[in-house]
């Protein structure tokens, strides 16, 4: 059974799709917060080292793998490292699927907040207080009040459904619809961000905020957590370890310049973070608002608080900000959905429409779980609703561990399985920038070592010394002995079973190519 693989219509379309995938919610709000947390301008040194030492080489590897195998991540990994490679590939895809579920929920909340900003004056919803319908009518300051009042209703489910429908529509014809979407969305993202920059730097003191963000505190360079923060940030920001870049590159012609594709995608992604830093920091400094190193807090509390204080056009900027978040999130979520759909299609030769319908319905149900409005923490000692608590717990495993594990394993499988020199030779055939032996050293030794150290540090600092993630927080507001008090353990098992367990089954399942091969072997023997 052979069929022509879909291809991007243009190089430009591919670059927009890949950079659109990499640029997501985290670029807009998490990078500025991280830079603030880790010493401002001094953070750029470990950040750039991480970009050139880890980010771009792994991006080149993922692009090279996809174009070399012309398959999505699990089957490309099988071609590189046999069944063990395929297992790692499915683990990556399934881990990314968990992330997609709650990522869409967050986008549903973005839609909800955009709706609030459209329907109400921002000085009401982002300033003042909101009286909650629970917690004995507790009043909490906005925008936190607005946010918690919204997520404790069923209304965001409509937002989640809307985002899943959009995802389905934009992935329905594969590269064709994705390319059409990113050609509109990605330039719009840049344009909206530029408008935010202009607004930020023209505020009184705005330029001082920019100078402040980049002013170095060199004391941080001796600290291990700053280097760890930069390495992790780079891995997350470039959408590595999701299987997305491999799937996207599999739609490229073999004769593409994968080195320059990787350079362009990575630098555009980091450039977007750079301008986001300027836009957000100029505003926060001018309005004396403290940033926080948390994506959700920055998105729903800190930036809206700043927007509400803008002297002019606050309403329009609030709507524009949530619109920016929505399109940035969509260009990322469609790539995550595409990676999963492409993997299932490649292995089982299923029709795109049926695969998409199946995973769309399953996906909506999964995202709905993270949007469950049931209040389990009425005193707001932690995350408030059941949905947000589940999201927090799942994010910890899928994001903080899953992606780094995938990165580590893919470097080992390709570096030591097929041999990174083979991918390097393949890339060098058509690239103007030739990869030397240093690339093999990075893929086989240095990057796995760095990722292993970060993982080990996360385990020791996060789980061993601090207890299992979420245990203390959950038991603070949930009565002991009930099922809810076991949520941290349950979510860990759900994540392990959903990734390792399903990856095992999917690896064992015979793909159409394997069945064809067995049939032709049997036919040949007869």
């Amino acid at each position, binding site marked *: 059974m052979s069929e022509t693989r879909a291809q991007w219509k243009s190089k430009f379309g591919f670059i927009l799709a890949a950079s659109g995938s990499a640029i997501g*919610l985290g670029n807009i709000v998490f990078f500025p917060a991280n830079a603030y947390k880790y010493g401002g301008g001094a953070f750029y040194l470990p950040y750039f080292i991480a970009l050139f030492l880890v980010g771009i080489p792994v991006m080149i590897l993922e692009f090279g793998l996809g174009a070399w195998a012309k398959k999505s991540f699990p089957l490309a990994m099988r071609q590189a490292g046999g069944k063990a490679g395929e297992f790692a590939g499915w683990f990556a895809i399934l881990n990314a699927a968990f992330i997609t579920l709650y990522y869409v929920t967050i986008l549903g909340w973005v839609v909800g907040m955009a709706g609030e900003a459209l329907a109400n004056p921002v000085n009401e919803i982002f300033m003042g207080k909101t009286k909650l319908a629970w917690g004995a009518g507790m009043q909490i300051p906005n925008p936190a009040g607005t946010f918690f009042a919204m997520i404790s209703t069923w209304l965001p489910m409509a937002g989640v459904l809307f985002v899943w429908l959009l995802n389905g529509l934009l992935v329905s014809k594969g590269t064709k619809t994705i390319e059409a979407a990113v050609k509109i969305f990605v330039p719009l993202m840049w344009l909206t961000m530029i408008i935010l920059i202009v607004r930020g730097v023209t505020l009184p003191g705005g330029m001082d905020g920019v100078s*402040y963000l980049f002013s170095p505190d060199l004391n941080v360079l001796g*600290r291990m957590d700053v280097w760890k*923060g930069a390495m992790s940030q780079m891995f997350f920001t470039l959408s590595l370890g999701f299987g997305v870049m491999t799937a996207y590159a599999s739609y490229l012609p073999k004769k593409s*310049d994968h080195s320059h594709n990787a350079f362009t995608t990575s630098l555009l992604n980091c450039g977007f973070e750079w301008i986001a830093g300027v836009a957000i920091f100029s505003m926060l*400094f*001018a309005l004396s608002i403290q940033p926080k190193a948390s*994506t*959700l*807090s920055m998105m729903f509390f800190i930036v809206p608080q700043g927007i509400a204080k803008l002297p002019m056009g606050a309403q329009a900027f609030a709507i524009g900000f949530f619109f920016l978040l929505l399109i940035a999130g969509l260009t990322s979520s469609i790539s995550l959905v595409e990676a999963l759909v492409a993997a299932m299609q490649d292995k089982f030769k299923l029709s795109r429409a049926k695969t998409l319908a199946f995973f769309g319905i399953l996906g909506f149900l999964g995202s709905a779980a993270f949007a469950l409005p049931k209040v389990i923490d009425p005193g707001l000692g932690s995350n408030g609703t059941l949905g947000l608590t589940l999201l927090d717990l799942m994010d910890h495993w899928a994001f903080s561990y899953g992606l780094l594990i995938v990165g580590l394993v893919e470097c080992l499988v390709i570096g030591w399985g097929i041999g990174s020199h083979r991918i390097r030779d393949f890339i060098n055939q058509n690239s103007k920038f030739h990869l030397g032996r240093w690339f093999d050293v990075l893929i086989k030794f240095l990057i796995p070592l760095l990722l292993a150290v970060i993982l080990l540090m996360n385990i020791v600092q996060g789980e061993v010394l601090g207890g299992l993630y979420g245990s203390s927080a959950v038991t603070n507001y949930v009565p002991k002995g009930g099922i809810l008090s076991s949520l941290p353990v349950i979510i860990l098992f759900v994540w392990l079973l959903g990734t390792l367990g399903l990856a095992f089954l999917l690896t064992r399942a015979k793909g159409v190519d394997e069945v064809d091969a067995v049939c032709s072997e049997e036919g040949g023997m007869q």
Partner: protein
Amino acid sequence: MKLVSQGFLMVLLLFLLGSATVLGQISVEGFQPQKNLFPIVGKTAMVVSGKAHKGERLRVTYRPQSAVSHVEILNMQKGRVAWKPAAPGLVKLEVGVPIPGKAGGDSGFDVLDSKSISVRSDRPALGFGIMILAGLILFGGAAFSIRNLLAEG
């Protein structure tokens, strides 16, 4: 793509605490953001608390909630203290009284009022220089790569 809800609780607590304390009784000489006036590093500014308390102090946290945050504590007299900002950026000012500990030292700080302000750098050129350098590397590199890609034909 990065999203985590780490610190969500902390932010929420800050908001809840903030509702009690950020009512803005503290005033800082030379801090009028609407008129583009901010305290400047190395230049003395007078901090005045709304209501004088016995033994009150001013706790200054530079870069709060960051890995490089540091604290300076100043004694206030009659609700006033001269403060010379040591570093630029976002600063949290808290007026409060120390809680005496068993061993004779302080075991905590009872915050009576707080305010976030921005302090202007006395050497902004360094920050701008790093900003321009970082921008040049990122956008210059991207432009160079795109040119190479498009030149392939």
